[in-house]
C-alpha cells in the first residue's frame, strides 16, 4: 500500500504534492535538478490563447515572510504550449494540470477546449484569481455569479476535470466556492495570492513596476488554512491547497484543514529541491504523528471540532 496515494478527479497521484502554477514554468528547469517523476503531479504556468508579454520589471519584491509577484501571466500562448511544452512533458509519468487564463470567457473556453484534448493533460486549473492583470483574471473570481458562469462554460468544452482556482481577495469565499461547485467544477484550488504592495523609500515609488502584486509565501499560510477550512465544510468537491507551504508539517496542516492535495509555490524559489524534499519527509512525520494513510486526515480538523460540540 502506498500511504501517500492521492486520488482526485482526473489525478491519480502517488503523493499529494505538486508544484503550484507559475512557480515551476513548464517543468524543464526543475527537471535539470531532479526527476519530475517524484512529484505527485505537475501544474504548469498559466496559458492564454495568445502569447503574453507580461508586466514590466521589477516583477518581484521581498516582503516579511513572503514575496510579491506581478509577472502578469507572461506565457508563450496556447499553440506554442501545445506544440512545445506539453509534448516535452510526455516523457514523465505524472498527471499534468494546466492553469488557464484569459481576458474574456471565449478566451478561456478556446484554451480549455484545446488544452483538454492534449494527449497528456489530466486536468485544467481555471485561473479566475490572478491579481496582476487588468482585464480577466481576478475580475472573474470575486463575484459568485461571474465565476459560476465561466466555470459552466469551461466545463462544457473540457474533456478533463476542471479545478477552479479561487481568489482570497474576497469578503466571503464560501458563496463563490459553492457557486462554482454548482456550476460543475470538479475541484477547487486555493488560494491564489493576496493583493499587496511595497514602496521603495529611496524612490518613493512602488517597488513593482505594476505597483501592486500578489503576496505569496509563508506569510499567507494562516489565511489559506482558514479559507480551506471554511470552504471544505460547505462543498463536496476536493480542494488542492496552497499558500505558504514550506515544511512537511504545512502539508499536514493543509490536509487537516480540508485539502485533499497540495501545491507548493514560493518554496521552490527558496529551496529548489523543496518538492522532493517535502515528499521524502512525509512518511517519517506521519509515523511520528501516528497517521497511517495520508488521505485519511483530510478535513480531520473540522471533524474533530464537530465531535466535541
Amino acid at each position: 500500500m502506498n500511504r501517500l496515494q492521492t486520488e482526485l478527479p482526473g489525478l491519480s497521484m502517488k503523493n499529494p504534492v505538486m508544484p503550484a502554477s507559475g512557480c515551476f514554468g513548464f517543468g524543464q528547469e526543475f527537471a535539470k535538478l531532479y526527476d519530475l517523476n517524484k512529484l505527485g503531479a505537475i501544474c504548469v504556468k498559466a496559458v492564454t490563447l495568445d502569447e503574453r508579454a507580461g508586466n514590466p520589471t521589477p516583477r518581484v519584491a521581498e516582503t516579511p515572510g513572503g514575496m510579491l509577484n506581478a509577472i502578469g501571466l507572461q506565457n508563450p500562448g496556447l499553440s506554442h504550449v501545445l506544440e512545445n511544452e506539453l509534448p516535452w512533458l510526455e516523457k514523465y509519468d505524472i498527471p499534468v494540470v494546466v492553469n488557464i487564463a484569459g481576458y474574456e470567457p471565449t478566451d478561456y473556453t478556446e484554451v480549455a477546449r484545446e488544452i483538454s484534448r492534449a494527449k497528456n493533460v489530466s486536468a485544467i486549473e481555471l485561473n479566475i484569481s490572478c491579481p496582476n492583470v487588468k482585464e480577466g483574471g481576478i475580475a472573474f473570481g470575486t463575484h459568485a455569479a461571474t465565476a459560476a458562469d465561466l466555470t459552466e462554460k469551461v466545463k462544457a468544452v473540457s474533456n478533463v476535470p476542471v479545478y477552479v482556482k479561487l481568489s482570497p481577495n474576497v469578503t466571503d469565499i464560501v458563496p463563490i466556492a459553492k457557486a462554482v461547485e454548482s456550476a460543475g467544477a470538479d475541484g477547487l484550488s486555493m488560494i491564489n495570492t493576496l493583493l499587496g504592495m511595497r514602496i521603495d523609500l529611496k524612490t518613493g515609488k512602488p517597488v513593482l513596476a505594476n505597483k501592486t502584486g500578489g503576496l505569496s509565501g509563508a506569510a499567507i499560510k494562516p489565511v489559506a488554512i482558514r479559507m480551506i477550512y471554511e470552504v471544505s465544510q460547505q462543498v463536496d468537491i476536493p480542494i488542492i491547497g496552497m499558500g505558504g507551504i514550506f515544511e512537511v508539517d504545512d502539508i499536514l496542516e493543509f490536509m487537516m484543514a480540508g485539502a485533499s492535495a497540495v501545491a507548493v509555490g514560493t518554496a521552490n524559489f527558496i529551496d529548489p529541491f523543496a518538492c522532493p524534499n517535502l515528499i521524502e519527509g512525509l512518511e517519517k512525520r506521519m509515523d511520528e504523528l501516528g497517521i497511517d494513510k495520508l488521505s485519511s486526515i483530510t478535513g480531520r480538523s473540522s471533524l474533530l471540532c464537530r465531535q466535541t460540540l
Partner: protein
Amino acid sequence: MKDEYLKIKEQKQLAPNIFQVKLQGKSIREMTAPGQFVHVKIQPGIDPSLRRPLSIADVEAEKEELTLIYRTEGRGTKLLAGKVPGEEIKVFGPLGKGFPTDAVKSGDTCLLVGGGVGIPPLYYLGRQLAEKGAEIITILGFRKAEDIFLEEEFQQLGKVIITTEDGSKGVKGYVTDAINQLASSYDTYYTCGPNPMLRAVEETAKGPGFVSMEERMGCGIGACLACVCQLKDPGSTSGRKYRKICSDGPVFPAGEVLI
C-alpha cells in the same frame, strides 16, 4: 547546479560597505565559468524570505574555494556580513550563463569595464583571460577614492585605470571617459555594473562586447519569469521576444537586449 551548505573560511571588509567572503565546499568545483552567479540562502527560515543572487568573484578549484564580494545594501547582505568563519550558508549554483571566452586567443587584448559591485565577476574573468594569454586592460569606476577595491588584484592581470566621480583618484568622471581616453585598441570588451553604466559602455565601447545584467529574481533558474528583459530586435531570433536574465544571462552579447 547544486544546493550545498558551504563553510565560511574568511570574511573581510574591503571598502566601506564592501565585504569579501570565502566559502568552501564540493559544489565549487563546478563553478568554472566567470560571469555565472550563485543564489545564497542567507540563513535558515523565512527571514529574509528570498535568496540573494551574487556573482562568482573568484574560484580556486583545487582548494574548493569560492569568493563572493558584495555590498551591504539591505537586510540580507547585512546579515551575511555578520557571518563568521566556521558558519555555513546554503549556496545554490553555479547559475546562468557566464562570459564567453572561447573566441579569445593568446595575444588578444580584452577590455574589462566594471562599476561598483559589477566589478567582482570581472576578476574571475580576467584571471581566466590572462591564463589564455590575453592582454588585459581594466577600467574600474567608483564614486570616490575610498570606495576602491580589487585595484591591486586587477593590476596583477594587466593595466588598470581607475575612475572616480569626484576625481579623488584616477580619471575624474565615469568609466566611459576612460574608454574614450584609451590609447590602445582592444578586441573584445566585457562589462558589468549598474544599468546606466552598461548603457553608456555599450554606446561608447567598440567591437564585440558582452554585458552582464541585474534584475530582481525569484527562482534564479528560469522558471518564474521574474527577471526577464526584452530583446532589442525581437524579430531576429527564435520566436521568444524576451530573455531571462537568470538563465539566458546574466551575460548577453552587447546589443542583444534592451538595458
